[in-house]
């Protein structure tokens, strides 16, 4: 190992994490992913890594890197690498939160109609197709321009761009580095939610921990209605990652890069393969922002129709938009000197502190809003970045609940009718494309998001601001 590997847990999460390790060490257990603890250690042994290989409280095993792992590589070191496994297959998967000036009591009577209207506007599920017409040329432009494309075409507001990580556009995106196959997969999927853990939820403010920070975000009273959209780059990002892995295996042989796990395929940042991946990844990130922007537009339309009011009058502003599967070039202080790093965040959210130049002016005093989506039917959180997080975890924190059971195990152990029944009992309207996959996303399959968030809060790497509770869910 080149650096230390660490992870943040409380006692409950520690048990889950060590159970995962113990199970995988039982005789006869082969195949599948390595346990998260081992993956964090393998990442700590990658060339060029600086600081520490950090596991966030929601960490669980993934492809190569654990999901909930962040690692930073020194760009000035020619050995440093970039790894698609450190970004994830759903490039720029992220969460966007919209606020409204509605109160829970305005929404509850027409909750079912509103959920149905959202479901009609935002196509969900595997193989879904969007309702925003796009041709190949639009697609090329969108890949290069990201949210600027949505802005130009009039799908979003100028203020939306202001309140988005990276202002919704990675400038190094190069669509020519993306395979035709990826573009073909992506084209019909713009403006669709996808499947898996992705969702759109109508939520209400359940608890406010930090009145000042919440106020800056426009969340001022309990019961205020918000909309959370959790989605990514769909098949497009998946294809970009798959294409890159093939190229990188060749590059590893040529440059004699040795890693502990075949899944950690990587290339030197300054190699052609490394640069090509970063440019294609940026294009996929732009795709995801256009995707979330399109769904923002559709959400506003759905609300406007139901309440017969303009989205402006409903104050449907974007509070923030975070990416939790991405690698970005950032400046950090390492051992007392300023360094330019390539920070991989996989299942980890950027959480920059107050006064950081890369966060919007409205959040200069509070720190960057961090949006943590819970599992289906549980609560979600808004946190803010802290100075301690900046020094300890390169300004990173958790991203969600994090799986506790594998998808296969969930399918075996849980019945989908029970899951739907339970949500109904809790008064949550639900619209799903494929009910039979719902048990994979049942709250029982996930860690308790409150445990995860409290651990981050107690460790000081981010600060609790607001808790949100769902009243309607749209899922794939």
């Amino acid at each position, binding site marked *: 190992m080149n650096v230390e590997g660490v992870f943040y847990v409380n006692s409950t999460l520690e048990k889950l994490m060590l159970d995962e390790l113990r199970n995988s060490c039982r005789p006869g257990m082969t195949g599948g992913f390595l346990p998260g603890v081992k993956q964090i250690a393998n990442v700590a042994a990658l060339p060029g890594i600086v600081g520490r290989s950090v596991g966030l409280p929601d960490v669980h095993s993934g492809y190569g890197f654990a999901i909930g792992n962040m690692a930073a590589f020194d760009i000035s070191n020619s050995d440093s690498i970039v790894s698609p496994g450190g970004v994830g297959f759903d490039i720029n998967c992220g969460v966007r939160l919209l606020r409204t000036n509605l109160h829970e009591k305005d929404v509850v009577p027409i909750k079912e109609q509103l959920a149905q209207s959202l479901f009609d506007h935002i196509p*969900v*599920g595997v193989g879904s197709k969007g*309702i925003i017409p796009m041709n190949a040329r639009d697609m090329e432009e969108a890949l290069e321009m990201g949210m600027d494309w949505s802005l130009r*075409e*009039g799908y979003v507001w100028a203020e939306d761009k202001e309140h988005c990580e990276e202002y919704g556009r990675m400038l190094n995106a190069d669509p020519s580095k993306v395979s035709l196959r990826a573009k073909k997969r992506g084209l019909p999927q713009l403006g669709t939610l996808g499947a898996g853990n992705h969702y759109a939820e109508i939520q209400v403010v359940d608890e406010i921990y930090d009145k000042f920070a919440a106020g800056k975000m426009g969340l001022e009273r309990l019961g205020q209605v918000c909309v959370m959209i959790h989605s990514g780059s769909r098949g497009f990002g998946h294809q970009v990652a798959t294409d890159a892995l093939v190229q990188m295996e060749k590059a590893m042989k040529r440059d004699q890069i040795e890693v502990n796990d075949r899944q950690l395929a990587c290339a030197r940042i300054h190699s052609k393969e490394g640069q090509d991946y970063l440019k294609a990844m940026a294009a996929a990130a732009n795709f995801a922002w256009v995707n979330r922007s399109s769904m923002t*537009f559709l959400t506003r339309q759905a609300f406007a129709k139901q309440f017969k009011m303009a989205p402006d009058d409903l104050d449907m502003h974007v509070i923030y938009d975070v990416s939790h599967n991405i690698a970005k070039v950032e400046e950090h202080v390492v051992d007392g000197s300023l360094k330019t790093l390539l920070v991989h965040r996989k299942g980890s959210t950027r959480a920059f502190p107050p006064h950081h130049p890369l966060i919007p002016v409205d959040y200069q005093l509070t720190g960057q809003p961090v949006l943590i989506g819970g599992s289906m039917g549980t609560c979600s959180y808004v946190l803010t970045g802290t100075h301690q997080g900046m020094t300890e975890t390169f300004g990173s924190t958790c991203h969600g609940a994090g799986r506790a059971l594998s998808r296969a195990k969930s399918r075996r152990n849980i019945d989908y009718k029970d899951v739907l029944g339970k949500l109904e009992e809790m008064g949550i309207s639900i619209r799903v494309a494929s009910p039979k996959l719902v048990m994979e996303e049942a709250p029982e399959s996930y860690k308790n998001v409150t445990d995860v968030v409290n651990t981050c809060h107690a460790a000081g790497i981010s600060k609790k601001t607001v808790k949100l509770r769902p009243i309607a869910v749209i899922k794939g």
Partner: protein
Amino acid sequence: MSNMFKLKLTALGHPNPEGFNCEDEKEYRSVVLWLEDQKIRHYKIEEREGLRNIDSDTWKEAYNTYQKDLVSPVNDGTMNEQLNWLLSYAVRLEYADNVTKYKDVKAEQPKQAAPNVVSSNPLDNLDFDSPAFKAGVERICTLTGVGPHPDPKFRLAAVAKILKTSPHPSPQTTDTFNINQPVDVLNLLFIQDLRELQTKINEALVAVQMITADPRTDTKLGKVGR
């Protein structure tokens, strides 16, 4: 140059400043002798023989020795430069002899041709010689660890250099209030400026949107997955 000589000779009380022609070798020599006799008086009277022989060929030699003895910085320069330095030196000596008489004299403000430019930057009107300014610089310097220097502006430049390097040194705990208070004020002013800028950017984007925006949806394209 001759005008400059005229001014200085007048100031020194030369009997004929108007008629002096520096190109004339003889007049030049006599002015040098007059300066030494009346104003500079570097040599004892008997030592001035060499300079007194204005018509002699050895005068030049004596003049060179004289300049070296005065440690003139321009004894390799042109004749005019040499004389100009001698005149300035004489003026300086004259002033030093009568400081009390001259120190209150103020030059008349020449009329300004250009209109007065009123500076809007309050920092331009800062009095760098005021004790308050010096004390302030002294305080910042102790906090940032900048060493002593007689010129406070020089020390302030050093502080600016330190502030530009990052990461910043952390302040000593006893002085955090002194540092944090102005830092907070600057931060708030900066955020206000930034907000104004961002609003202007948004306005520009909206203006462009008026021309380019044409959001369309086509529900026929939609398809819900399985």
